[in-house]
């Protein structure tokens, strides 16, 4: 495992913001960490990167215990923290050289790597520009570049696409894919479900400090139900809804309008004919019957039981 946590707790005052967190991030994966605001994503990232210490529990990065081998862990870890600033009056290159030396590189090595990495993130022509003049997107790219110094094995990013325009988001996505292709494990937190669905292979969903789901994107999408069937029915009665809910492959139903019912199903076979027959046999007139595959967004709302 690139990252794993055991029985991790974090308490602020008397309130637990993380409870019994068991996280498993496979080597070479892109792990998306989802959760609402205040779910504990940033706290988890701070714990994983050593910016904060856990109240209880253990963190392992590449098999090394963070509490006893923090120095070694820092050498193989790259962090892009959320909303963190650079020194406005210094150039991008000056930042990179400084951080490179802190990561154990010599001045010369640091300078060479900095130039390559700034080129890689598209800041090659801006390396002598003061960071104070950088846009938000450029600062994010500089943040990624500094995290890639000294070839880390694990890259942790806290909502890197926050506040970026579509072009910026696509650039960051491209950079992260390249990093992953080079063998770097990526742990990424985000609000943006589409973003996670687009690039991640694994997903963990955090809710109120608890990890409520952790699996591949595909499995998460089908965790509760693997599809939604929208039925339009005249003469829809509550008895009919109860009968539909009693079917063994139906997870739940939601009444969307007077005649529109959404049925969440968990089945690998086509269950539309069976639903249709049940409705017709009970006096209903079906005028619409469509099946949609669940998106990660649907799955997220499903798993976290958030009602809008």
């Amino acid at each position, binding site marked *: 495992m690139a990252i794993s946590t055991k029985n991790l707790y974090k308490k602020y005052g008397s309130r637990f913001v993380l409870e019994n967190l068991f996280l498993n991030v496979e080597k070479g994966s892109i792990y998306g960490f989802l959760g609402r605001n205040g779910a504990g994503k940033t706290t988890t990232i701070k714990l994983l990167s050593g*910016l*904060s210490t856990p109240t209880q529990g253990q963190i392992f990065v590449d098999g090394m215990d963070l509490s006893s081998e923090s*120095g070694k862990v820092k050498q193989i870890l790259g962090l892009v923290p959320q909303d963190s600033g650079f020194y406005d009056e210094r150039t991008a290159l000056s930042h990179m050289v400084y951080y490179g030396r802190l990561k154990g590189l010599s001045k010369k090595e640091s300078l060479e790597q900095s130039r390559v990495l700034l080129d890689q993130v598209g800041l090659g022509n801006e390396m002598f520009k003061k960071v104070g003049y950088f846009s938000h997107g450029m600062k994010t790219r500089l943040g990624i570049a500094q995290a890639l110094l000294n070839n880390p094995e694990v890259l942790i990013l806290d909502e890197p696409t926050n506040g970026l325009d579509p072009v910026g988001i696509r650039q960051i996505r491209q950079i992260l894919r390249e990093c992953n292709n080079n063998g770097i494990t990526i742990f990424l937190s985000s609000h943006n479900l589409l973003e996670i669905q687009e690039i991640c292979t694994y997903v963990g969903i955090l809710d109120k400090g608890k990890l409520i789901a952790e699996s591949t994107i595909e499995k998460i999408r089908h965790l509760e139900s693997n599809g939604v069937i929208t039925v339009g029915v005249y003469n829809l009665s509550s008895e009919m809804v109860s009968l539909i809910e009693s079917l063994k492959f139906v997870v739940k139903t939601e009444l969307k309008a007077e005649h529109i019912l959404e049925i969440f199903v968990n089945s690998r076979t086509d269950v539309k004919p069976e639903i249709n027959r049940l409705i017709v046999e009970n006096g209903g007139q079906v005028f619409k019957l469509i099946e949609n595959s669940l998106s990660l967004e649907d799955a997220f709302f499903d798993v976290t039981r958030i009602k809008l």
Partner: protein
Amino acid sequence: MNFSEIHIIGEDETFRGSKSKYVWLFGGIFIFLCFLAMHYSTSYISFLFSNSGGIPYTLISYLVVLSIGPFMVMITSFDIVSSETETGSLRYIISKAHRSSFVLGKFSFLFLVFTSMSFGVALISLIYQYSTSNTFQFEKIVLFLISSSLYLGCFISIFLFISILSANNKISFAMSAVFLGILIFFFLQGDESYLKYFTPYYYGIKNIEFMKSFPVEAGYLKIFESLCSMLLYMLVFLFMSLAAINRRDL
């Protein structure tokens, strides 16, 4: 703690750091103030010392350090860590280096600036001494250099500690000003009060006696004891700073 990291952080702060220019500027202003004090003492108060072998330039410089030094240190040190906490730039460093290296790197930068400043003042007083009485009093100069460095070091470690505890610069400045006020209040309680031991002023002022007539009757041991007290005071706050940064959530 890692000496290589301390060296990198200290070096970067000294030559390229965001505060570097203005801390060096304040150091320069301080030297200039000491120079003015020495210059005007030659013009206006030389008659006071006509029977005691000339103007004690090192003592005058030391008095300037004792009185203005803490304020100068406060202005330059109160935001040494809090500014990085406020902007979040601290996270980039802490994700790569040990927390203790960060604190010691910052401390060594400030200590270097104020030691250089003390050295500059010592050099000027040496020149004044030689130009007025054709003598070099190296012992006094060395005592001045060590005393003023340690005395200012005590204040650097105090304000560093406060800066680590503060979430932003405003809080840090307010806390530093209040703490300095408390130290002055403790000192003003007089010789009978045990509160004087909690202030660097007490240890700093003790050295005035040694600087007036060197070598002192009590001998070098007394001087050594006094300097060690200041060193200990500085180390206590430095250890408290290290403990504070290691416990902080960033």
